[in-house]
């Protein structure tokens, strides 16, 4: 119990005296053991599976594994659909976040909880729900089919919808948080100067919360890229049309684990590149 107060115990008693003279630096440098150990364990726990993936990657046959057209089809489809899902999330999600943060209406807390439900919902459940709503025989999908001849399951649009359903809450949460943190006085000032509410939103609010939107978009994009359950349930699995990378990985695992490892590696590399490239720039700023 006392050890967090005595960081010297962790690093050795010899350094006790000089440490006491410069308390500030010492407190920052000495890490209490009860925090250090679990922290390192957590780090190992999160990184070990990824390291295992690297260790077990069949590097020698990797080029052959990745040369298959189906791999590139799946990767390309993944990138395109994740980007489209992010665009959908931006167009619909930012206004929703604004409504949640800047307006008052009864039951707002409940609505906010509902909006974030896909965050915790098992994606397969999301896929089933989408089928029941937008499927050919679904509550809304039935009319889409008979009026416009549009059926969403088994189409690339279906993949985008499944991904947007799962990814949009990330954007909404991020943008709403930024909106709440943003100083409303700028907007009030603009309003008093005669700007309409939409002009204020466009010219003042949007630039103000841009980092938050960017962070949310990155999160949503990454989530959409990894989406599996809702996609395979709602959009099915057809190479080139609805087979995204996670689906390709899952099916490859059935009969060719090496191929699954190689595909996973590609997805991992893409995700790391995006998160590392964008996170430092925007997430911390938000």
């Amino acid at each position, binding site marked *: 119990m006392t050890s967090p107060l005595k960081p010297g115990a962790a690093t050795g008693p010899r350094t006790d005296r000089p440490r006491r003279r410069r308390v500030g630096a010492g407190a920052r440098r000495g890490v209490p053991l009860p925090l250090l150990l679990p922290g390192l364990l957590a780090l190992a726990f999160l990184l070990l599976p990824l390291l295992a993936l690297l260790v077990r990657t069949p590097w020698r046959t990797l080029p052959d594994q990745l040369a298959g057209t189906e791999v590139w089809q799946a990767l390309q489809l993944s990138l395109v659909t994740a980007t489209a899902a992010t665009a959908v999330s931006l167009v619909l999600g930012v206004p929703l976040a604004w409504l949640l943060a800047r307006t008052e209406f009864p039951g707002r807390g409940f609505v906010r909880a509902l909006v974030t439900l896909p965050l915790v919902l098992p994606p397969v459940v999301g896929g089933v729900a989408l089928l029941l709503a937008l*499927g050919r025989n679904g509550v809304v999908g039935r009319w889409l089919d008979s009026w416009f001849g549009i059926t969403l*399951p*088994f189409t690339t649009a279906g993949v985008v919808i499944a991904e947007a359903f799962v990814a949009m809450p990330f954007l909404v949460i991020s943008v709403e948080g930024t909106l709440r943190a943003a100083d409303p006085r700028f907007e009030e000032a603009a309003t008093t100067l005669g700007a309409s509410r939409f002009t204020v939103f466009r010219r003042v609010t949007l630039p103000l919360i841009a980092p938050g939107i960017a962070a949310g978009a990155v999160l949503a994009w990454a989530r959409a890229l990894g989406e599996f359950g809702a996609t395979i*349930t709602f959009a*099915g*699995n*057809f190479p080139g049309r609805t087979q995204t990378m996670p689906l390709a990985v899952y*099916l490859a*695992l059935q*009969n060719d684990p090496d191929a699954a490892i190689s595909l996973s590696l590609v997805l991992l590399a893409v995700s790391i590149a995006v998160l590392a490239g964008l996170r430092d720039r925007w997430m911390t700023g938000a």
Partner: protein
Amino acid sequence: MTRSVRRTRRMLKVAGAGAAALLSLSACSSSSDSSGSSGSADSAKSTGTGSSASPKLSGDVTVFAAASLKESFTALGKEFEQQHPGTKVTFNFGGSDTLAASITGGAPADVFAAASPKTMKIVTDKQDAAGTPATFVRNQLEIATLPGNPHKVASLKDLTRSGLKVVLCDKTVPCGAAAQKALDAGHLKLTPVSYEQDVKSALNKVELKEADAAVVYKTDVHAAGDKVQGVEFPEAAKAINDYPIVLLKNAPNAEAAKAFIALVQSAEGQKVLSGAGFLQP
């Protein structure tokens, strides 16, 4: 204490493996003279020193079985628990590939019943089976269509019509491999709207009316009741799946597991299985 428990368990395992080898040998030899019931009688004889009816079986039996066996094995499990009070049969139903992967990964299971010899081979190749797997049933493909068959599907060839949404299993899973074999046998080319990851999800797409037809097992059409309508097709005879069953080497409860396998192979078990639409081996 734990060490002694472990030691006795290991001894049990060795004994179980030996007995299972005997059992599978006898099952093999009996399968050549073709009757399922004589097979179970043989196995009862070969393990007669310990098991058969009188000495009490107890404890949990864990059975990993292909998803298509769900209905019939659940019924057989209840039957087994009634015949042997004090036992409990726990099932893990899933895709045969997935089950095989968990078994080779060390999942504690007593019995493995797969939907294809290929998936069974994953387990036997890793030396995780005690003895040789025995085919206990066979399954045939059937087309599942919407109730009332609104698209008038009468043959496998009808599925190639344009505008018809057909779902197949992925080629990596047994039902998909069988479907491909049937299509090849009929010299047909079929572009489905989706390759599903297992037979139940292929069937689901028809049950939800998202797809117009799916190529699934006869037993699945049977189990779906009146939610789908089955259409038989001659090419199915070229793509019949054998279902092998085996006692696992690290079975925690080998004695009871052997009795369960014997029940599956007995006349009584075969009656339940053919009632579900399976063919006799």
